[in-house]
């Protein structure tokens, strides 16, 4: 399991990455997105493809909120996901000006998640689907 201290180290390192992702949607249309984005399953023990979210990439400096970029099995950007800790939210923490993987958003799902490696505290998933077929592609087995 990746410890919090390891996460902090990765996050700190990524602050000095020379090629920071600007949030330009064109750069992230196909996987893999440019550095400092990294595949989540390479950072923590999680499946490569998570049903409903796809293959996830994140800039470790933006944890826990993200954005996480979700790709379908053909490598097409399909969703942007934010993971918002419930406890911090209830205590007044705000996350503003979060970047999106694409400016095109077809629909949004918001739901509770009990936690997983990387974002272990109970949190909310905010999922922006970028086209009308994205949801189905990300659910594919």
């Amino acid at each position, binding site marked *: 399991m990746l410890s919090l201290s390891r996460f902090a180290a990765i996050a700190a390192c990524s602050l000095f990455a020379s090629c920071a992702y600007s949030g330009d949607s064109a750069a992230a249309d196909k996987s893999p997105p440019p550095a400092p984005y990294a595949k989540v399953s390479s950072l923590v*023990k*999680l499946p490569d493809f998570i*049903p409903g979210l796809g293959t996830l990439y994140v800039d470790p400096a933006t944890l826990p909120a993200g954005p996480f970029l979700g790709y379908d099995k053909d490598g097409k950007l399909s969703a942007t996901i934010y993971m918002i800790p419930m406890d911090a939210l209830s205590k007044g923490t705000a996350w503003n000006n979060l970047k999106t993987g694409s400016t095109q958003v077809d629909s949004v799902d918001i739901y509770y998640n009990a936690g*997983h490696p990387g974002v*272990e505290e109970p949190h909310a998933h905010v999922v922006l689907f970028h086209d009308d077929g994205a949801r189905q592609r990300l659910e594919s087995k």
Partner: protein
Amino acid sequence: MTSRRSVLLGASLLPLVAGFHAWRAARGGTTAPVVIAMRGTPRGEQVWFEPQGLWVAPGQTIRFVNEDKANVHSATAFHPDLYGRERRIPQTAQPWTSELLLPGEHYEVSLQVPGVYDYYCLPHLAHGMIGRIVVGTPEDVKWTQEDYHRSNRPTGLPGTFPDLNDVLATRRVPPRK
């Protein structure tokens, strides 16, 4: 609802069952692993062990299987040697952890020391994903007062363990959802 009579009847049969398993283990016989599944809803709103409470004879192999297609889980004993948690297993028992299991992976453990074993899932402790395994019966000489009187709540953490008497009476206690 379980009646007091059935609780007593169930508990009274346990020494016979435990004795059979112990005899079989001593003879070198094998019994199939007893499975505890790690499960969750597809989007991860709820996660749990199934069953949450389990009774086994000493030496019985227990297999934890991650049946959750979208999440990883662990089965980790409450013990100071593992992530500094309080000890909630018998004093002479070895602590154990599966570490994180991907979907479809499994981990086996055989608990030899009679008593009450409480465990949790590493990434879901804050959500209260916890379970209890009872090994042997209160008649076992190795049971201690600590086993009889272990609380049903982990200190400072969410979740509730199945009551010892319920586990002894029914052998399998389903999770609270």
